[in-house]
């Protein structure tokens, strides 16, 4: 027990550096991904059939492909098409693409949950299509989408662990490095797991509390 604690104290700084990389990648890919999700959500609702079909195809492909394959595609696959990305850039690109595909459904559900009367009222007072969206539909729809978007962001943070497969120096890569050098795999992965739990457990509890609080204001 004492051994494990001193082992942890020795390697904790290295793992924390990895955790920093995980957090950075998550914080870069989540906003890009949610923006993509908004674009996809609007694309699916578009009146132009080809644009709609293209968006559905991209979203379904993005949701149907394992994140690991997306990461490896971005890191190992794109160079053969003439685009070489660093492991950071590849991780952010892949996680953002996956986030975009998943959150487009969340955002679409949010936009559809805005009562139709809001849109009718916006048309009645003569707002242009762009203003209807920007000032009436989006502010209300996105508010509805906030709790599930936060919930999904926790999953994206967990997804950064797959950066291990493309040599991203995040938490798991560092833990694996320590494990394969010291052969103490068990304690180092337990510590890595605890670090993930230390962030994700409070975040999950907060999101579910927020969900409950917001649902008070929704008429059912």
């Amino acid at each position, binding site marked *: 027990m004492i051994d494990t604690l001193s082992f942890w104290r020795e390697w904790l700084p290295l793992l924390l550096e990895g955790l920093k990389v995980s957090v950075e990648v998550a914080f870069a890919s989540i906003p890009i991904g949610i923006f993509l999700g908004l674009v996809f959500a609007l694309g699916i609702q578009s009146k132009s059939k080809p644009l709609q079909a293209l968006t559905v195809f991209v979203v*379904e*492909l993005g949701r*149907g*492909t*394992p*994140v*690991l*394959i*997306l990461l*490896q*595609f971005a890191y*190992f*696959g*794109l*160079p*053969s*098409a003439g685009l070489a990305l660093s492991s950071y850039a590849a991780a952010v690109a892949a996680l953002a693409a996956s986030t975009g595909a998943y959150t487009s459904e969340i955002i679409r559900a949010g936009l559809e949950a805005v009562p139709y009367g809001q849109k009718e009222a916006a048309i009645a007072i003569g707002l242009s299509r762009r203003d209807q969206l920007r000032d009436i539909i989006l502010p209300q729809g996105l508010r509805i989408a906030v709790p599930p978007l936060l919930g999904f962001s*926790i999953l994206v943070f*967990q*997804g950064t*662990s*797959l950066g*291990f*497969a493309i040599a991203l120096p995040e938490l*798991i890569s560092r*833990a*694996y490095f320590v*494990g394969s050098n010291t*052969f103490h*795999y*068990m304690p180092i*992965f*337990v510590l*890595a*797991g605890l670090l*993930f*739990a230390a962030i*994700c*457990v409070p975040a*999950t509890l907060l999101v579910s509390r927020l969900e409950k609080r917001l649902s008070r204001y929704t008429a059912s």
Partner: protein
Amino acid sequence: MAGNFWSILAGVPLTIALTFLAFAVGAIFGFPIWMMRMAKTRPVRLTATGFILAFRSIPPIVWLFLIFFGVGSGDISLSPFISAVIGMGLITAANMAEIYRGAYAGLDIGQTEAATALGIRTYHRFRDVIVPQMLRTALPSAVTFAIGLLKDTSIASLIGVQEVAFQVNALAQRTFTGFDIYVIAALIYVAISLPFAVIARWADLTLRLRVAR
């Protein structure tokens, strides 16, 4: 290219086997965890909550490495496939416990009241009244989870299970190409999950009608 394609397909049976076994383990173990989660005794309830939170908050790769390298390098040696089944199975159990809980919460309280009023004992109330209806409401979410699980089994390639993602990477390294190989891999995963998605939609439409309101 045609030969390459077959070598990726060679991973499909393992991907499917891993998904089915992990799901079976999870669907069965999810049950006692759900019941513990609902227990009246606080320590029992907290144990189940802790289990669910741990397996849902710590990424799958950590559990697979912990089981394969951590446990496997000790006295018991575990094959990559068995480690993956255990790891993904436990993650599924935690998620299934939550799905069962949601299904139970969605049932009409009148079903419990009627069963109690008829003098049906707790065991039979669950076996004959609650659980059959619960499973119907749980099925759509369970299938959705299974589709996610199918994709997560790709993580098992990192501990050496020779499923689709493993074959794809081996092929990409052998041929020094990647672009089209990874696209094929993506399409294979989409193709395997399509039948599940159809089942989910069918289940959602038909089974929900067979739950008392």
